[in-house]
Each structure stands twice: as C-alpha cells, then as structure tokens.
C-alpha cells in the first residue's frame, strides 16, 4: 500500500487554509489560556487615551468642540491597537520567529508564506479588536462620546479596506524585518510616535493645515500613504461628520482600495525577494545578531 493512499495530499487551497488557521490558532487560543491579557490589553491602554482626552477637556472651553475632539481621540486610541499589532505582531514577528527557531520550519512547510502571515494577521486582529472595542466602549461610557453613524456603508468599507491595506503593509514589513537583527526591534519602536504624529491618531489630520497652512496639507497627503491615516480620517468623518475631513469619503475609500492592492502585491514581492536573499546570504537561521 502506498503512503499517499493512506494520506492523500490535500489540495493547495486546503493546505493553505490549514496553514492560515494553524497560525491564527495559537494567538487566539493562547490569549484565552492567559486571561491576564484582558487586563493588560483592555483596561490599561485606556488610561493613556484618557490623558489625551483630558488635554482637550481642559483646554477647549466650548463643550461641543471639546466633545468632538474627544470623539476623535477615542477613535484614534482604538486604532492604535491595530497599528501596534501590525508593528509588533506582524512586521516584527518573522524576526521573532527567526530568533525562536520557527522560521526555518515555516520555510520548509509546503504552504505559501502569505498564508502563514495571513494567519498571524487574523490571530492578531482578534486581540486588537478586543482592545479597540473596549476603548470605544470606555469612550462612550466614561467620556460620554456620542457615536452617530452617519455613513454606515462607508464606515464598514473604510474599516475593512483599512485593515486589509494595513495588514498588507505589515506583511511587507515582515519580510523586510526578517532580514534584520536588532534593527527590526528598533525600527518598530521608531515607527510608533512618528506614525502617531503623521497619521493624526490624537488630532484631526487637518491639524497640520491649522499649523502650517498649505504645506500642512501636503504633509497630510504624504501621510496618506500609510493606510491608517485615511482610514482614521474616513471613520471619523462617518462618525462625527465631514466638517473636519481631509478628503471626501469616496476618495479616501478609493485610495484605501488602491493601497490594499499595492501593499499585498508588494508584500508578495518582498517576501519572495527577501527569502531568496536570505537563502543566498545564509541569514534565515541567523540568530541573536
């Protein structure tokens, strides 16, 4: 009897589906086995967000405007969960896998690397979503933020394409980080505050225009290459009105769709290139650089 009769080779789709789910599984189940994460990932991050809330509360005397800005901060605070997840659990993860000795196992597995990265994204999104939702709930309950969905369809589409583009970007970074040693770690640190600044996590993107006029507009345009910038602006427009919006909603959605395609394409390209380079230079198993 042939081995393959007993164990028929699964289809390409089935294998990759299993790889995707297999990589997502430890993140979701692992999180549930250590319930302490609920405290660390839900309650504690709200405190930092609250500090930004109080800045606006303290220094904008007009209650309506203060409330609007608090709403902006809450949405920004919720979205930090996804950015942190992309940086630390997507981009830096292949570097970590290399350090832990798992990367070589991924490389010899008969599945697409994209499925493994996709699984990471899916698993990571679970904890990030819990954190994001808890921030929104805290915003509503503690700070009285009123969320009125004015454009539900746009809100859903913008969120979905922001996630796709963002995690596509994370996959692209993951392949670059894979080649690095400790640079990967420092790069993730470096991409925290500067991106919070460029993407307007704590203020409307139009803030650059209030500060610098026309050059501020161009800073916003440049920052739009980071998917979360327009994602944040679009969601804020859907929830709090278009008055402080940077671009019209349709344009933001169109750019996010284009960025999704671009980043997933670049991720695929970068992954193949970095794998080839890594094999040539023997760096795929190099640890503790």
């Amino acid at each position, binding site marked *: 009897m042939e081995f393959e009769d007993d164990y028929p080779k699964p289809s390409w789709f089935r294998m990759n589906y299993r790889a995707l789910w297999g990589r997502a599984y430890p993140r979701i189940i692992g999180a549930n086995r250590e319930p302490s994460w609920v405290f660390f990932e839900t309650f504690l991050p709200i405190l930092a967000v609250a500090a930004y809330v109080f800045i606006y509360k303290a220094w904008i005397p007009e209650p309506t405007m203060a409330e609007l800005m608090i709403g902006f901060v809450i949405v920004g605070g919720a979205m930090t969960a996804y950015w942190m997840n992309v940086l630390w659990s997507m981009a830096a993860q292949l570097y970590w896998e290399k350090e832990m000795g798992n990367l070589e196992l991924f490389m010899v597995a008969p599945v697409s690397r994209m499925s493994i990265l996709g699984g990471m994204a899916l698993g990571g999104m679970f904890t990030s979503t819990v954190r994001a939702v808890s921030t929104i709930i805290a915003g509503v309950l503690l700070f009285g933020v009123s969320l009125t969905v004015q454009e539900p369809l746009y809100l859903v589409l913008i969120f979905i394409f922001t996630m796709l583009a963002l995690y596509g970007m994370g996959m692209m970074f993951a392949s670059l980080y894979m080649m690095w040693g400790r640079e990967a770690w420092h790069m993730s640190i*470096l991409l925290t505050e500067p991106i919070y600044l460029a993407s307007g996590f704590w203020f409307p993107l139009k803030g650059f225009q209030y500060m610098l006029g026309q050059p501020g507009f161009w800073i916003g345009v440049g920052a739009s290459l980071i998917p979360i910038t327009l994602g944040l602006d679009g969601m804020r427009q859907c929830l709090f009105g278009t008055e402080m919006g940077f671009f019209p909603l349709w344009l933001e959605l169109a750019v996010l769709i284009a960025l999704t395609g671009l980043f997933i394409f670049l991720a695929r390209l970068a992954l193949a290139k970095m794998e080839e380079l890594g094999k040539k230079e023997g760096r795929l198993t190099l640890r503790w650089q």
Partner: protein
Amino acid sequence: MKINRNTFKWSAWLGWQMESNWTRPFIFAIYAIVRPIAASLILVVMFYVITYLGDPSTARANFDFLFIGNAFFMYIAQVLFGVTWIIHDDREHYRTLKYIYISPANYFVYILGRTLSKILITTFAVIITLAFGVIFLEVPLNPLGVDWLLFIPVFIIGLLSIIAFGLALAGISFLTAKHTMGMNEGIAGVFYLFCGVIFPLSVLPDWGISFAKILPVTYWLDLIRTSLGAGAGIDTAVAGTSVEVSLVVLIISTIGFALFSIGTFKLGDNLARRKGYLDMTTAY
C-alpha cells in the same frame, strides 16, 4: 561588594552595547532624535488644534506646561519600559535569564546596571527635546534662570522613584507572559493621566486628584517645572503647596515606593523560581 560593583558596571556596559551597537553611530543618533521630537510634535499639533478651536489667550502658558511635562515624562516611559523589558528580553529572546541567575551576579544589581544605560539614552532624548522646544517653539527655558540647587536633588530623587516603580513592574514581569509591553504602556498611562504631565490635574474628578497626590511623580514634575521656571503656574493638584513641603512629600513617597518595589521584586523573583517561570517562552 566587589561582585556587586562589577555586576553593576558590566551590566551597564552590556545595556549600552545592546541599545547602541545594532547600527552605525549616525543612524543611532537619528533614531535617538526622531522619536522624542515626533512625540513632542504630536503635542504641538494638538496645541494648534486647541488654539484654533479654543481660547488663544491662555495657549502659550498651557503649551509650556505640557511641553516640559511631556519632555520629562520620557524618563517614566523609557525607564519603566526598559526595566521590565529586560526580564522579557533575557528570558524569552536571548534566553539568558537562568544563566545570569546561576552566575555569582546579583540579578537585582544587574537590573539596576542595565537601567543606567536606559537613563543615559533618555537623558540625551530629553536634552534634544528641550533644545528643540527652546529653538523652534519658543519655550522659555534659560540655563541661567534655572534654580539648579532645587533642580538637581529633585531630579535625582524623582529618578529614583521612577526606577523603584520599574523594579516593581519587573517583579510582576517575572510572572506574566508576553504582556510586558501592554503592562508598561498601561502603567505609563497611569502616570500620564494622574501626574499632571500634559494637562492640569484640576480637571480630574476628586478621586483622581486624591490619587495624584500620593504619587511621587506628581510632585516631581511640579518641582521640575518650578525649578526650570517654565510651565509653572498652571493649576495643578499640588498648587499652593510650598516647595519645601512638596520636596518632603517627594522624598517620603519615594522611600515608601522604593520599599514597596523591592518587596514586589523579591516576591516576583521568588514565585518565578518556585513555579519554574525563569525559562518560560510565550512569544506566540
């Protein structure tokens, strides 16, 4: 004593190497500058939004207040983050924690040494941020106008209190999985929220103000602003308290937190050894 001195010296050297030798000095300098400047610029843009939407007459004083607070908050964020990350890094990344434990080095002293390099790098970032504020944002800081006799002791005592907090968190990190980062971020958030870093504490509810008054960092930041002669005068929870009283409270609360932190560290260390957590890996 000699072993502890050597442990402190070489762990500080190790920390510095780990922080800095991953790249060329020029790139490292850029890296060290970009992050604090970006963090400050977030507040600058927020300030412009507030000025645009709010009351421009009080904007200047408010800005100086939050800029100085945010610059010195870097010590809290970096040192807390640094101290606890050492446990995670040694245990799960380099997997050297158990080897350090079986060496003659005292792990507590080792952590203190590693912290020193974090403090040096943060000091560089704080100086850069303050210089940026003075040159580009007209923050009224003048070295000749600083009350150095107040600033130096206050700065050192405050730093000791921050290290003490870091050690307490390190003790907890022995027992937690990979959530160290969330914990750091969150605890730093407690200080950001309750210590009058970027907004006057008077806007907090009463229980928040009472909580703020038991944290040494609240007094530390207030005294730092007073000694620098910039950003003071905003109504904080400790407004009206004399410098002497604030200084005494700072010293007493620092001693209290230091004792608490050493106890927490020892407890975490003990439990981790008993439960076999010293070589735990959770980087899934």
